[in-house]
Structure formats: C-alpha cells, structure tokens
C-alpha cells in the first residue's frame, strides 16, 4: 500500500454565525493517493467546496477549521503558519475554480495572472515567466499569444482552459477541481475533462474532482467519495461504486440517473430534500429519507466501515 499524498483525519469545519454555528464538514476521514483522480460528489451545501477551500486554508470568515489534521507530503497543513502556507499554495496544491468568468481578474491580462503565480514561487525574470505562460496556454489548446488577452475576450470554455493552465503552472502534486465544468455546455465539458485526464497522465498529479454530476464523475474518476449533509456516506473505486453501491443514498442517487447502456430501468428520485445543517437529523443524517431505516438509525451515528476491500460506507446495512 503506497503512502497517501493527502490524508484528512477527523476534519471539522464550522461556520460561526450569530444564530449559532453550522458544521459544514463533519469528522471527515479521507485519503488521496498520489496520481489518482478522486471524485467528490454531493448535493449543494453538502460541504464539498468548503472542503476544497479548507485544504488550501483560504476559507473566508466566518468559516473556521475547528478540529482535525490534514497531512500532505509529510506536513500537517493545519499547523503551517501564514508564510509557510503562502509558499505551499499553488506550488504543491492548486485549484480550478467553479466559475472561470469570476475566477480571472477582469483588469489584468491572463498572461499576467499566470506569471505572477510563477514569480511568486520561483526566482525567474518576467520574460522567462511570460514565455512559460505562453507554453502553458499552448498545452491546454490555446494559442500562446492569447496571453495578452483579457478574460472577457475569451469564451467560457477558453477561460476554463486558462484556469487549468494556471493550475498547472507550477506542476503541483495535487490539483483540486471545484466543479470545473458546471458553467459550460456538455460538449465543452467533455473536451475539458478529457484534456485534464490527458495532462494528468503526462504530469502525474493527483486530482480532487468536486462535482454534483455523479454520472460524469463515475466515468472520470478512479475513486469516488459521496458526501451527504457534511458527512462522508461512502467512498470506493468508481467501477465498484457504479455496479455495486453500498450506501442507500448512493443507491438512490444512481437510480436517479438514466443509463445509456444496459437494462432499461425506471428512474426514481430520493423522497424528501437534503436536511438543513443548522438543525440536522439525529443519528444517521439520511435516515428520514432512507427506505431501509430502522429505529436505531435515528439514535446513533453510523460508523464508516470497510464493506469490501477499499470500499467504505457509513451504514450498518451496507454490504
């Protein structure tokens, strides 16, 4: 078993508001292996994006990391001071944001936004950095001289490619993709994901791919983690997850997606709606919507246990 690249243990993130605190990530344990693509799925508000920002420690207040550890390349990210964090950010962990339109500074060229990332971490001249910015753009299929362009002069798909080029500028070992294709049309989504996979094969970085699009994630990722109401419901290899989901929530999710191949099945939605994190249900948070729930489910939080080798689920009935 190789060492994990990133190892999250018992991580809790809270949003402290005047009306009390809300736990957006609750006692999370999760590993990312070097060079793998780990998908993270969950409904809106299930804590996915909060997790991404917590890893880079760029969570804006009122969010605070209240507990846990995040080991990355031999160090605990939560114990680094601001100067150490500044050195590590982007150099080792970079990120592609959800909306490429909003993630690029509207008043400076995209080239400048790439070079200032390079020059913040490496002692190179502006000319060298600028040249590298051009190469990076070529790498994601954009002509190098477009680095003189501003964000508004590019199409949505191109902007997202710029975001990817930017994320790869310093060849980090982990790239977090926070819903990178949400704002794009289906064809462009597919192109971009293929491009990421191609680059990932060449450069060998690990990917944390956050999305609510379960079908696309199962196809794209090596392993998938499913979140429900700030907690981990299930994590396992994508293939295993597709054919044989363990947690009732994952089962419900998969039934809600139409299948192109295989037997034609009736689509079914999960009854009810996701719980409020301000006042979550007791015990297993999925129990009010779960068909298999028994009295014990409301009483105690289910343990995350290994149901098959490498496949974990937070449900006592999972097999």
């Amino acid at each position: 078993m190789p060492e994990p690249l990133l190892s999250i243990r018992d991580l809790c993130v809270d949003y402290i508001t005047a009306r009390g605190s809300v736990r957006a990530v609750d006692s999370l344990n999760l590993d990312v292996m070097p060079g793998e693509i780990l998908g993270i799925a969950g409904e809106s508000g299930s804590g996915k994006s909060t997790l991404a920002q917590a890893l880079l420690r760029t969570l804006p207040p009122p969010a605070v990391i209240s507990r846990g550890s995040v080991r990355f390349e031999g160090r605990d990210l939560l114990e680094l001071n601001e100067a150490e964090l500044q050195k590590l950010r982007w150099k080792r962990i970079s990120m592609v944001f959800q909306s490429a339109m909003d993630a690029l500074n509207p008043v400076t060229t995209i080239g400048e936004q790439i070079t200032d990332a390079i020059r913040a971490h490496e002692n190179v001249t502006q000319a060298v950095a600028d040249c590298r910015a051009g190469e990076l753009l070529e790498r994601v299929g954009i002509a190098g001289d477009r680095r003189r362009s501003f964000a508004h002069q590019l199409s949505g798909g191109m902007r997202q490619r710029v975001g990817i080029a930017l994320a790869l500028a310093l060849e980090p070992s982990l790239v977090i993709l926070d819903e990178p294709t949400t704002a794009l049309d289906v064809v462009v989504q597919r192109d971009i994901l293929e491009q990421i996979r191609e680059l990932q094969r060449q450069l060998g970085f690990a990917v944390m791919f956050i999305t609510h699009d379960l079908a696309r994630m199962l196809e794209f990722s090596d392993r998938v983690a499913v979140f429900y109401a700030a907690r981990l419901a299930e994590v396992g290899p994508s293939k295993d997850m597709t054919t044989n989901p363990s947690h009732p929530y994952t089962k419900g999710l998969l039934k809600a997606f139409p299948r192109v191949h295989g037997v034609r099945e009736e689509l079914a939605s999960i009854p009810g709606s996701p719980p409020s994190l301000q006042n979550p249900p007791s015990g297993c948070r999925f129990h009010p919507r779960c068909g298999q729930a028994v009295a014990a489910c409301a009483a105690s939080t289910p343990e995350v246990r290994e149901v098959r080798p490498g496949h974990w689920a937070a449900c006592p009935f999972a097999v």
Partner: protein
Amino acid sequence: MRYLLKRLGFYLVAAWAAVTINFFLPRLMPGDPATALFARFKGKLAPEAIDALRATFGLTEGPLWSQYLTYLSHVLRGEMGVSIAYFPAPVSQVIGTALGWTLFLAGSAVVLSFAIGSLLGVAAAWWRRGWVDTWLPSALVFAGSLPYFWLAMAALYLFGFQLGWFPLGHAYADDSVPGWNLAFVVDVLRHAALPMLTIVIATLGGWLLSMRNTMISVLGSDYVNLARAKGLSPARVVLRYAARNALLPSVTSFGMALGFVLGGSLLTEIVFSYPGQGYLLVQAVRNQDYPLMQGIFLVITLAVLAANWMVDLVYLWLDARTRDSAS
C-alpha cells in the same frame, strides 16, 4: 481611437450648449453692467457717459443674435472682454490669476482627499471590524455632514484666531514677494494648509465609504480568492487584485469632483478670503460684472467637460473591458 473621437465630439457639442446658455443667462437678469458701473462712480459721471459705457461693453451693437455671434467668435479666440469690477484688466487675465490659486488649493485638496480616503477604505475593508473600520467611517461621515462653512469657520476660529497656528486668510502674507524661492513656497503652503485641511476632512468620509464598500464585495470575489490560493503576498492580493478593481467606481466620482473643483470651492475661498475662482465669482456677481461672470462660468463648464474626458481616458487605460466595447 474612434471611440475617443466620438466622445470628443460629444464634449464639443456639450461645450457649445454651455457657451450658449452662458450667453443668454446673464441677459435675463435685471439691470445692466453699464448702469452698474455708472452707479459705482456715485454721480461723478455725466449722464451722457452711460451711453458711452454701453457702447464700450458692446451692449448696443444690434440685435441679440448679432451680439451672440460676436460673443461666439470672441470666445473661440479666448477674448472674454474687460472686467467691470477690476476695470480695466481683461477678464482672461483676472481669471488666469484666480484659476491658478483655485487649482492649487482645491485641486490638491481633492487629490489628497481621494488618495487618503481610498487608501483608508482599502485598509478598512482589509482589516474589517478593526479599529480603522469601526471608528473612522462614522467619525468622518459626521465631519462631512456638518455644514461646510461652519466647519471652515470653526477651524479658522480655533486654529487661526485662538491658537494662531495658521494665518487668517489670503494666499500669501502681504509682505511676501511672489517668486520661486523657498520662503515664498513655505508661506503659500502655510496659507493653504488650513483651507485644504477643511476640504479634506469634509470629503474624506465619502471616498473612504465608497472604496470600503466596493472593496468588501471585491474581496469576496473568486478572483481574489484565487489570487490568495496562488500564494501571492497579501499586499499583492490587496493592491493588484482587489483594490485595482474596487477603484473603478471611485474613479468616476473622482473625475466629477475634479470638474467641480473650480466652482465648488466657493465657500472655502470666502471663509479664508482666498483669491481663487469662487471668491472672484462672488465679486463678479456683487458688481454685476457680466464679462467676468461669463468668463468664470465658461471656465467652470469647460473644466467639468475636460475632467469628464480625462476620466474617459483613464477608464480606457484602467479597464480593458471599456476598450473593447468602445471599438
């Protein structure tokens, strides 16, 4: 480029409209400058002289439209006639001297206020709920909402009259000889300090608040978050990414404030007896000095238009989006 020419065309039309209104407006007022001048000599002039004066001021030259045409051609050549209040000095010369003082006093006050206010706004947004953010905005808004003449007179009374730290008025001491030497420059700065300070205090709050509020929303944007995630130093994130964007709305207001500098410093100049445009304007109105009034209004209008055009230029340079929508 075409955009700039188009804007220039717009400003030319606006300038023409202003010049025209400028011509007709004083003629709607009761009385005429010749009678005013006649009255100033308190009976020492023979009644026949009033006709001669009318002729001198061009008030008899044919119907209104021909007067208007003469006026237009004079304006184009920069000839604004002879001042009545400061007879026989030409209006252009009278305004020229006053313009310099106003540009110096109110111009530097507005620039200072904008620069300091915006920087404080950045600081207040960055250290949100810190002491800058908690105390300064309310204190400055309080100062800004006091009637300006009261603030100015209170400052003059306290620091000029009671404590004697600053001179009581004028642009320089009576015994100073104007010239580019250190003693004179120091004297001018000493005279300008208090009026400048009152303008800065009265306007600082507005700049601070507008910068602070846009900064706060910009700081929450994804690109600032990404800049932080890139591992850039906080100073670079704040200045290059956040402040650069948050400044854009303030630049518009700054341009307008600059435009109004020439007309807007009226109260300051009256309270501090400062020999600028505002002070001159009051003199002109008191003496029904039409040529001078027209000259001042014209300069004020052109200043507003020029400042707007400059803001257009600065915007093109600051924000690439305007460059593209323009062409």
